[in-house]
């Protein structure tokens, strides 16, 4: 049977299948199928069997131990000697799946889940020839590392960035210098308002008008660049088809969840459907340790070996980035992506990301897939949300990429090179839009973010309250991101360059300022429309008036048009008329922006949880092939 295997594998693997069949743990037919898959995927037989769930992990590792003539240990019953742990090597334990278990008769016993020749040789080099091995399951190793090193891993997840690069951490909301600058500016404006009220109001009005004009200019450029057809030709279907499975790297998928037991079966089936060798998937279900019901639901599902439950110990701040940082300690992939529990990525997305990385320059550290919604037709809010996302991901982000402006990453479906992600100290656990922050941070470090032509369909928020909670978090995170990166504006300017710096000001800063200033503008305009009060004339000298009128008519008209264009590009034609109602959506944004601002001051690290599963659209009913494509 082994003669049929074209790829070099550890010698024991040729027999492990036979042993499992002999022991009645695996049928011959499945072994044959697994061997065929091995030929295609180029991974070890054991990984395939576990990934497919054809053999229980316990049975597999026991058989493996017999095959290698090594003892099998259950680390839950015989836990490792904690004193043998070298804390600086925790990452290696978690990622290479071994740990020092015990010291017996002067000899160190190492528990390994991967008894390959290479692995054993590496460990002998590290610990000496006298070292002895025992076999255990990878789940036991992960559990043991977590149990022994919880405090240290938690500390690392929370504080690593703040310690190594305090200037890039949002742990401190406002720096002393920023407080002084804000204080001085506020005092100056108030003083001027008292001494020269008209001139000051004209200056403020003029500043806002010019800012909006430039912001409009940037979006015009982004639309122009984003509408070019080459933007959509990043990875073709032919390239995906030409990809050889055995060339694919191991892919880690982080799925942070909280109190979402109902979405687990949907998620697992979505991931199983991915067009990627299952044995090369390293899926981490990142669950809070107090989320008993989701943990139990995951256990009850009896998921295959590719799914690992990472229990994140309780600590503050209780944020998604902290949970992801924690799970990152156990990630074994060469590439990594994040999906939310309710996500439905297009099946070939991982392959497209691999190809996009291969085609991209070396300094591309992240590929962002496009996000869109499967429940766009549910109600007005989901329609508006879909319009917004179509514009954001189908026009703006590819254009930002092309113009080398930092891309505020979307919350999910961003694909990273693992080594770069670790080098950048991963996500900032204090930033509630850690993804947007990471996008800017990567650009500052000389890396680039690309956008792939693959879509992940999510559930659009269909309830206003829930939407405002989610959006207020986004606004707060944008404010955090802006404050963090504007601590040293000159340094930011140097690292991002001219286009990147101003793009950041108008894209990130512009979103915040626009939402916060909208109510003032709107009230003023409505009052003027109702009364034609000439009192406003004084703060609208001709130039300011003309710029304001331009912004009002052309700027706003253009933004409505952009939303139509987004729907047009994604063939969501039924949504186009709804673009006319986008000003009402802007009002909601303003509410969320003020809520975010309030929280930034009073509760900066609070994670406003978005409740998923509110949609009336059933996930199982969603056919990705029938979703609109860009």
């Amino acid at each position: 049977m082994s003669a049929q295997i074209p790829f070099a594998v550890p010698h024991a693997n040729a027999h492990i299948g036979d042993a499992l069949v002999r022991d009645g743990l695996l049928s011959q037919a499945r072994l044959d199928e697994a061997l065929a898959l091995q030929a295609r995927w180029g991974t070890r037989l054991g990984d395939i069997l576990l990934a497919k769930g054809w053999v229980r992990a316990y049975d597999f590792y026991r058989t493996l131990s017999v095959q290698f003539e090594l003892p099998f240990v259950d680390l839950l019953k015989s836990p490792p000697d904690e004193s043998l742990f070298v804390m600086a090597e925790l990452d290696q334990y978690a990622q290479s799946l071994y740990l020092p278990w015990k010291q017996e008769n002067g000899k160190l016993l190492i528990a390994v889940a991967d008894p390959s020749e290479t692995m054993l040789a590496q460990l002998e080099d590290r610990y000496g020839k006298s070292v002895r091995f025992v076999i255990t399951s990878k789940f036991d190793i992960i559990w043991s590392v977590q149990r022994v090193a919880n405090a240290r891993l938690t500390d690392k997840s929370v504080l690593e960035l703040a310690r190594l690069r305090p200037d890039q951490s949002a742990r401190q909301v406002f720096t002393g210098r920023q407080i002084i600058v804000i204080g001085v500016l506020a005092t100056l404006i108030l003083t001027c308002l008292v001494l020269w009220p008209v001139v000051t109001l004209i200056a403020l009005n003029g500043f806002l008008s010019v800012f909006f004009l430039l912001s409009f200019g940037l979006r015009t450029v982004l639309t122009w660049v984003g509408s070019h057809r080459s933007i959509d030709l990043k990875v073709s279907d032919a390239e995906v088809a030409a990809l050889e499975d055995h060339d694919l790297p191991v892919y880690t998928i982080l799925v942070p969840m909280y109190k979402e037991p109902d979405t687990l079966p949907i998620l697992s089936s979505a991931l199983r459907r991915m067009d990627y060798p299952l044995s090369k998937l390293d899926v981490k279900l990142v669950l809070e340790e107090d989320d008993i019901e989701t943990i139990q639901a995951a256990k009850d599902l009896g998921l295959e070996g590719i799914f690992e439950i990472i229990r994140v110990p309780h600590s503050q701040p209780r944020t998604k980035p902290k949970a992801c940082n924690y799970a990152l300690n156990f990630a074994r992939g060469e590439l990594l992506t994040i999906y939310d529990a309710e996500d439905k990525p297009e099946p070939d997305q991982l392959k497209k990301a691999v190809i996009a990385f291969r085609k991209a320059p070396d300094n591309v550290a992240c590929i962002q897939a496009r996000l869109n919604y499967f429940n766009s037709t549910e109600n007005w809010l989901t329609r508006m949300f879909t319009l917004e996302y179509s514009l954001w991901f189908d026009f703006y982000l590819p254009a930002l990429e092309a113009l080398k402006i930092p891309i505020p990453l979307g919350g999910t479906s961003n694909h990273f090179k693992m080594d770069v992600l670790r080098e950048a100290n991963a996500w900032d656990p204090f930033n509630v839009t850690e993804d947007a922050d990471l996008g800017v941070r990567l650009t500052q470090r000389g890396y680039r973010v690309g956008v792939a032509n693959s879509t992940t369909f999510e559930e659009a928020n269909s309830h206003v309250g829930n939407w405002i909670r989610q959006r207020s978090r986004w606004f707060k995170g944008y404010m955090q991101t802006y404050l963090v990166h504007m601590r040293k504006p000159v340094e930011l300017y140097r690292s991002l360059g001219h286009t990147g710096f101003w793009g950041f000001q108008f894209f990130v800063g512009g979103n915040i300022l626009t939402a916060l200033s909208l109510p003032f503008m709107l009230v003023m305009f409505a009052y003027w429309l109702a009364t034609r009060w000439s009192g406003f004339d004084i703060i609208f000298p001709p130039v300011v008036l003309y710029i304001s009128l331009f912004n009002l008519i052309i700027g706003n008209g253009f933004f409505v048009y952009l939303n139509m264009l987004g729907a047009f590009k994604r063939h969501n034609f039924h949504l186009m008329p709804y673009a006319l109602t986008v000003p009402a959506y802007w009002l909601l944004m303003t509410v969320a922006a003020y809520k975010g601002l309030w929280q930034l001051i009073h509760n900066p690290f609070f994670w406003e949880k978005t409740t998923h599963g509110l949609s009336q659209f059933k996930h199982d009913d969603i056919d990705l092939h029938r979703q609109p494509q860009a």
Partner: protein
Amino acid sequence: MAYPNSNTMTSIYIASRKPRLRLLSLAVFLALGCLYIGLNIWLGGNGFISDFDLHRWSKAVTSIDADEFRIEHIGLLYPHGPIYLLAMVRSVPGIDSALAGAALSAILIALMFGLWNRHLWHKGYPLWSRLAMVALLALHPYSLWAASSGLHNALLLLMFYVFCYGCYLIISIHDLRAVVLVSSMFAVLFFADERTMLLFLALMPLIPILAPSRMLGNSLVGIYSILGFPLMVAAGGWLFLNWVFHGNAWGFLQSPEASFRGALSHPESSPWLSAMGGQWLAPLGWALMFSALAFPLPLWLAWRYRRYPARMAAALSLFIHPVLAVGLGTLIFFLPDLSGFLFLLVPATMTAILLMPRSRKINLMLAMLVMGNLGGWLALSWQPSHETHAWQGALSGNVQPARDDQIEMGRWLGENAQPTLIDDRSLYRAISARGHARNLILPFSHQFKNEMKRPQPLTQQIVVANPARPAAALDRVTQQFPELFWNGAPGYDLVYDTGEWRVWRKQPQTEP
């Protein structure tokens, strides 16, 4: 059947010959620029200056020389695009002649042909055939007319070529950016030319033919929305501005002076409207006939390449588009003569050549263009408006008699640049000839408004019209002081008299 030119061939060309192409396009641009500037100088020498250019130049001059720039000074009765362009030109030190508009027109048309030369190159046409086609179309009477009959025509021609090229991209490569380009073009065009709305209306029935079937199959309404929304925003914005500044959203369509009305306010002065105004089918038939006469090439290309139905339909649609606009424009008494829309067949022909596979029968194509040039003269001469007739006369070397004495008076006012009460609505030709608006007291100024409240004027110098002449109806100074033309005012001397206009000047103060 494969197209004769392939992308591979083109890319090879691109790699090796792009700098040469740039140089050649620049040479085409410069040569045609010189040709058209020469044409304008010739016409100017024979007494023809576009009335449009004079009017908009006076607006540019008054807006630049006013104490502060205000949209209200310019008014909202005509699109602002050409005025802003001229104002920019006027800001350049040393440029103070209304001929700047003509020079700008020459540059714009030359630019269009320079672009077309590039696009022909991309299509794979060899040098000599490119140059021949560019030369023949550049010398087409409608091209010459557009380059010298007013900035609005040149601007519209260039922008219409961009629109046609956008359509070409939509049809040939289904490019979303081209959709954005085409739709935005109409919005921009609305601020540049009053004919835009008619052009869009004429386009509406053709959109299903022009749009690729893939787009059509998805949503026809979607295509109309995407193409029409920017124009709707522009038009809605214009209504809003009229309401904000003048309290009447529809003022730009109601005022007799509004260019948005076209010839509606004085249809009797147009032979074409006198004969065809208010009709639909007859003008359409005439327009079609003269289009075929002046531009036979697109029709021949459509017939020759009928095996490419989508491209054939698109070329015919672009050909029909200005013809439909003629029909609409005549129906509502907007269009003073055929040339107002038929000159847009120049870019339609250029695009038809791009749309179709590269023809091997270049000589036949050139012959068609020559025939079109001859037919063009015939079309241009058919019931021309007063302005077009004057243009033809000046082109043929007949010195045009001055239509009024405003220009002479303007020069005199320039030499006697004292504070002068004057209405720019009726005296824009004089202001253009004067060269600047300093020391002029114009209707938008507070001083003018104060003068209009007095029984007797106080300004140093006053220009009034003969109340018996039509010009007086537009002149607010004459309306306020109807006796001034004949009787003068106490303390004022008559210092200039054309018969139609008189200038009164305050007597010098004598020491008691």
